[in-house]
């Protein structure tokens, strides 16, 4: 080193400050672009997983409640209890319980289960069921199911 003249020592082939700054700004631009795109995708993915979970829960509830209420011979409701042919549906600990067994998937918390009777006649029930749910993992994601089920006329009386 000692033998190299001062002028040559400082015109060596290292990067200049400008080159470094340009390189840093360009790579940070690329990094920010790719990073935000990845963050967007991950966020989207988690949101669509939540949506899928809600859809699954709603689908299960619609199938289950529709079938049992439509074809029930004996139906009774009280508050948030529905009893269809001895099968009891109620809300407990954020789940909808059918005879003691939860019928909503894990990851979905049920906030409310309201049953309103809008039947035109007391012989045939027609119930509006409102179920509010939220994601257990992302409590800000909420959804609602409003389902109407009418009891079917299964016995015909001849006059």
């Amino acid at each position, binding site marked *: 080193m000692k033998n190299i003249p001062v002028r*040559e020592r400082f*015109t060596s082939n290292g*990067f200049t400050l400008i080159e470094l700054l340009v390189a840093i700004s360009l790579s940070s631009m690329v990094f920010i672009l790719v990073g935000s795109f990845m963050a967007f*995708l991950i966020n989207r993915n988690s949101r669509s997983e939540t949506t899928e979970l809600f859809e699954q829960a709603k*689908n299960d509830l*619609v199938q289950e409640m*529709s079938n049992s209420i439509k074809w029930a011979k004996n139906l009774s409701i009280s508050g948030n209890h529905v009893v269809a042919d001895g099968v009891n549906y109620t809300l407990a600990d954020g789940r909808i319980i059918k005879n003691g067994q939860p019928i909503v998937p894990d990851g979905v918390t049920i906030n409310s289960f309201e049953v309103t009777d809008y039947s035109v006649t007391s012989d*045939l029930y027609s119930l509006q069921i409102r179920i509010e749910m939220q994601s257990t993992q992302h409590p800000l994601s909420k959804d609602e199911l409003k389902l109407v089920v009418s009891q*079917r*006329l299964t016995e015909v009386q001849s006059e």
Partner: protein
Amino acid sequence: MKRNKISWKKGGEKSHRAFTLIEVLVAMAVMLIVVATILPTVSWLISRSAYLKYDAQAGVLLQEGMEVAYNLAAADWDNFTTSFPDGVYHPAVDVTTEPNMWTLVFGPESGLEARFERQVSVSPVCRDGATGGIVAGECGSGSVWDSASKLLTVSIKWQENQSDKEINSTLLVTDFSR
């Protein structure tokens, strides 16, 4: 080691030059083009999941319309046929009665969940005089209108990606008390 330009030799390797600004910019432009082609695919996949949600919502609204109409028809046939002559209706809750109960209001409804239009149609049923089978279209000679049957049709329409979508469901209801 040469000192007058940014290049170097190492062992027997070929000499490498650093990238020029132009090269970096070209590389970035190429990358942007690639991203720009992938993005529409990703956004299509995302919108697809929203559309599936609309399908499910439409299904629930369709069921609601049908269950309300069925309850009215099955509860009291004579009242149903006199209160709701053939035409287009939408389901509603009659708050003038105690307890509140279902009713049908004349005309279709729109703006359901800010997207859907729903109508419940009550239409007459024409039957073949000899076989009793349902005759589609004109009720001409040899066929009669069946006053003990009605056809309930619920339809849900909505817009999705600038195109119209519609689902329908039809139920034949009959007066069993006769």
